[in-house]
């Protein structure tokens, strides 16, 4: 009996493994992914990066250019996340089960957040390119919309987790909606909300590169410029600057998180 159970378990995991292998195989056929070619390409890529992908002296002269673009990108990422957080908080209040005003408003705000979140930031960038052209605003709005969608969901979950009991208690004392929100919900959830905003800024800096390549603005644009001009030394410097700024942002937000909680 026990032997039978073990045997069945083994058979079950074998079947699951087999299904996964079949799915992977089908996916390889559909995408024309060649496993041998990819195995060959990894050492080739390493050799290429060691011999070509490092900043040299002429790349260092481009530091001022890169710095001004990086600054623009960082400010766009921060502005998008901060402004989006204000809108997201309002929508989260209406959408959260704990603080919803009425059913219809809750459904609408949840639906809006859902649509905004599930369309990738790259698509927003492509759509906004039509009306804002190659300006910082395109990047800003693309990141804003994506941040808004994500933050609304994150804030909603935070309010749901934090608020339930205290909101009920305040409601029983006859407190108004405004005082429930500003005296209980907001103060209790603020560290968590800021933590999400900081996370969003990190994500935005990463996506800003992608958005920049698509829309021709910020740090992504200057990378694309060097990359397409085969100036790989300068391009590597851009990558280095992005990595450093992301690591520094991560470090700062970890510090803030530890100090807050």
């Amino acid at each position, binding site marked *: 009996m026990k032997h039978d159970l073990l045997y069945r378990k083994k058979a079950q995991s074998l079947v699951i493994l087999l299904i996964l292998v079949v799915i992977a195989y089908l996916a390889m056929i*559909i995408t024309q992914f060649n496993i041998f070619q990819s195995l060959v390409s990894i050492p*080739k890529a390493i050799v290429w990066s060691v011999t070509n992908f490092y900043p040299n002296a002429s790349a260092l002269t481009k530091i001022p250019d890169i710095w001004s673009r990086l600054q623009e990108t960082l400010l*766009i990422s921060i502005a998008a*996340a901060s402004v989006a957080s204000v809108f997201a908080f309002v929508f989260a209040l209406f959408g959260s089960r704990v603080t919803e005003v009425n059913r219809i408003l809750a459904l609408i705000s949840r639906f809006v957040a859902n649509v905004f979140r599930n369309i990738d930031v790259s698509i927003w960038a492509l759509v906004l390119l039509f*009306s804002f052209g190659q300006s910082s605003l395109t990047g800003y709005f693309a990141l804003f919309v994506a941040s808004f969608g994500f933050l609304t969901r994150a804030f909603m979950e935070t309010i749901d987790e934090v608020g339930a009991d205290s909101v009920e208690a305040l409601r029983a004392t006859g407190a108004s909606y405004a005082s429930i929100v500003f005296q209980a919900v907001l103060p209790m959830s603020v560290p968590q909300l800021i933590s999400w905003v900081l996370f969003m800024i990190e994500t935005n800096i990463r996506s800003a590169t992608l958005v920049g390549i698509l829309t021709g603005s910020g740090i992504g644009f200057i990378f694309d410029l060097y990359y397409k001009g085969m100036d790989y030394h300068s391009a590597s410097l851009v990558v280095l600057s992005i990595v450093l700024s992301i690591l520094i942002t991560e470090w700062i937000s970890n510090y803030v998180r530890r100090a807050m909680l």
Partner: protein
Amino acid sequence: MKMIRTAGPALTGRDPFTAKRIRIKLLTRSALVIRMTILMLALLTLLGFLTFNYQGVNFFKGVAATLSNFKVIFIQPAFAHVTFQGAIGELLITLSLGILTTLLGAVIALFLSLFAAKNLSNRMTSNIVKELVAIIRAVPTVLWVLIFAVSAGLGSVAAVIGMSFHSISYLTKAYSESFEEMDRGTIEALEGCGASWWQIVWQAVIPSSLTSMISWTFIRFEVNFGVAVAMGAAAGAGGIGYDMFMDSSYYYNLHEMGAIAYFILIVAMILEYGSVKIKDKIRA
């Protein structure tokens, strides 16, 4: 927690009614940090708006144009350069890119996470792997893909390998954290029985954290679908993102962008529904 001012009127010995008002809100370190953070974010946002490169774009005109574009996109979707079946095929390519990336990432992350988990390896190895993974994550995915594209050429090989880096990094972190949650006693008991390290891993560690590993992997798959769309657009990786990019940058066809956006939206919502369901099941 440090309190800046704590003396209440009762302790000072003065008449409580003439004494100063009691401070209800204390300025603790955490409150100070919160205020400073909000202030900094507000200042940087303001600075951003003042220094943005507007290139003569009128803000309100742009917003109005965007709204009318949205109307075209969401109300009048139509196919032009791609057929309905063609779009489904492209969608399958994007999904397959996501699947391959997730599976490749999961397999490599499984081994890396064993070295990253503090209770399974030693402190130094764990720290090295975790730092390495953090640095990998600091390079945006699109840059990984483009760097690989130089030597492997644009296409699915560069896309899958480049996209796998972030999956590996993300899943290594997630897996190793769920390994670390495991009860120390189980491992000690097995060690006491003379079980080898691999036996402990395969018989105790992985079975007990399998459910959370599966949920993390599926969540990553959801993310990877979005990444695959983006890589199709930005790095020529093929799939539905590439069609979107062509419509936006060459054909200027908003109607077709709308149709494609609906396709992507539906798949993304199904995936999100799936991962929410899986998360609920695991939490319960």
